[in-house]
């Protein structure tokens, strides 16, 4: 089944049709979400009542649009804050890990590398509860010893950030390591021969070389954090990020408002994702 081996026309057509069907299947749920954001009705379902922008810009009941819906706007802000913290933290630790595994030989290197991969094969909900249990143990211990309640260790944004970081750091490490492996170390040596110190050589030669991977990791980490659900669900406090806020609304019943939020999310993440893909292709 490769182009150079002739196949009966019927087989080729059937194969093409299958692939086409697959892409329709991929596009279908997202398209209906997008389309019903413009339905002039209380429910995101048929019949089609006409086209409206109200679910984006409406400011009067019953059609309050996204841009006038305070709780949703606040949830988007919370998500963006969490995602920013997680992505910066992940890229920083990922960069450090990449240098460690690339530049040093030490005992237990293999073991540490395997441990570093582990968060990818732990279900997100288990990561969430283990961090929840441990942070409560620490908080309870501190209370017993010092009568001091550490709010940061109770469910809330701090734990959400740590929980998401605990597995997104692995992704950042892998992305940055892959690029560091392709780096020609003689360039660094050349800089040092020309009188640069070790740190200067890394800062002026290696880091710029790693920049595409670091930006890629930053965006991927941001998106993963923004859309994370499982780990966040177990660690969330009173400030709900967007996915949790939308989940709570969806349980109560849906209005096209949720479609409008979803459409904005789709547009936002597609733009980010496409930028990264194009950016990496150019490099």
């Amino acid at each position: 089944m490769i182009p150079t081996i002739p196949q009966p026309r019927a087989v080729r057509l059937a194969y093409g049709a299958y692939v086409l069907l697959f892409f329709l299947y991929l596009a279908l749920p997202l398209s209906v979400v997008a389309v019903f954001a413009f339905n002039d009705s209380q429910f995101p379902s048929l019949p089609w009542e006409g086209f409206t922008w109200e679910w984006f810009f409406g400011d009067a009941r019953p059609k309050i649009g996204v841009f006038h819906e305070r709780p949703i706007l606040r949830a988007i802000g919370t998500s963006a804050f969490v995602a920013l913290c997680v992505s910066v933290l992940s890229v920083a630790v990922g960069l450090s890990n990449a240098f460690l595994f690339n530049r040093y030989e030490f005992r237990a290197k293999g073991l540490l590398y395997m441990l570093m991969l582990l968060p990818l094969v732990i279900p997100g909900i288990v990561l969430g509860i283990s961090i929840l249990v441990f942070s409560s143990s620490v908080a309870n211990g501190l209370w017993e010893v010092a009568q001091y309640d550490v709010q940061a260790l109770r469910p809330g944004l701090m734990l959400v950030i740590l929980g998401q970081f605990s597995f997104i750091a692995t992704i950042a490490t892998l992305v940055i390591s892959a690029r560091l492996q392709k780096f020609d170390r003689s360039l660094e040596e050349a800089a040092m021969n020309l009188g640069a110190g070790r740190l200067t050589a890394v800062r002026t030669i290696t880091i710029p070389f790693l920049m595409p991977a670091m930006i890629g990791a930053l965006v991927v980490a941001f998106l993963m954090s923004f859309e994370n659900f499982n780990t966040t669900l177990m660690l969330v406090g009173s400030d709900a990020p967007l996915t949790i806020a939308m989940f709570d609304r969806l349980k109560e019943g849906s209005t096209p408002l949720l479609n409008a939020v979803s459409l904005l999310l789709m547009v936002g993440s597609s733009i980010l994702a496409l930028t990264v893909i194009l950016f990496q292709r150019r490099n």
Partner: protein
Amino acid sequence: MRAGTKLGFILLLTPLLLWLSLLIIIPHIDMFLVSIRERVDVRQYETSLANYLTFFQEPLYLRTFLRTAVMSVLATLITLLIAFPVSYYIAKIAKGRLQAVLFVLCLIPFYVSELVRTFGWMILLRETGVFSNLLQWAGLADRPVEMLYNDAAIMIGLVYTSMLFMVVPLVTTLESLDDAVVEAGYDLGGNGYSVLREIVIPHATPGIVSGSIVVFMLSLGNYLTPTMLGGKDSLWFTELIYSQFIVRFNWELGAAFGFLLLLLSSLIVWGMLRLTGQTLKETMG
């Protein structure tokens, strides 16, 4: 090591050790310790296996656990069967620009939150949904059809949600398969089926394994899809964990459930790696 490199080494090692110990290793040990204790009085705990006994004695818990495992395996198989021909098409048949576009088209839906994808399936499948209306319009049904809230809906959602994690590793391994090898297979008298079995599939095995591991894990640990698309009797194991922790506030039993879920997923991942003679490093790294 020189003094300078030694300092650098320690500085680079510290974040890794802090991350792995404080967020991965110690929390899991602590979770295990909580799972093997039993509350005997207010703030009084005893070490016991009571929580694990409860799990094995309560049919609902055990049944949900097994159901979740079986359905996750099934979801993995279905995802593999659907994804393989598509991945092969992208890797071997589509050329140049078309290839790049198809690959990106596969990636895009998965940059969108799982919540949005699940919401899309709800709009399609529910009683007042698009499919139900289409069926009535086409005259195939005379009243609204409810397609949501059953196991099939969960399966559709799980397969959809995991598709990317199967397609990407498959495309990557299939791309590295040399056309000449496939041609040689045909020249030596093979037909489509034998070439697939003897050449293509063995070559794609690393991709199949890593894709299957990730898809299985994601299905097993999924909470959103079974909750939103499943009905009252289609309980998922993660829902039990959630309810013990957040609703019932029985952390001991919840921790035991969490540990069992972790054990099951580790066992299956380890088993698949053993079976195909691969390591976690090759598969994930």
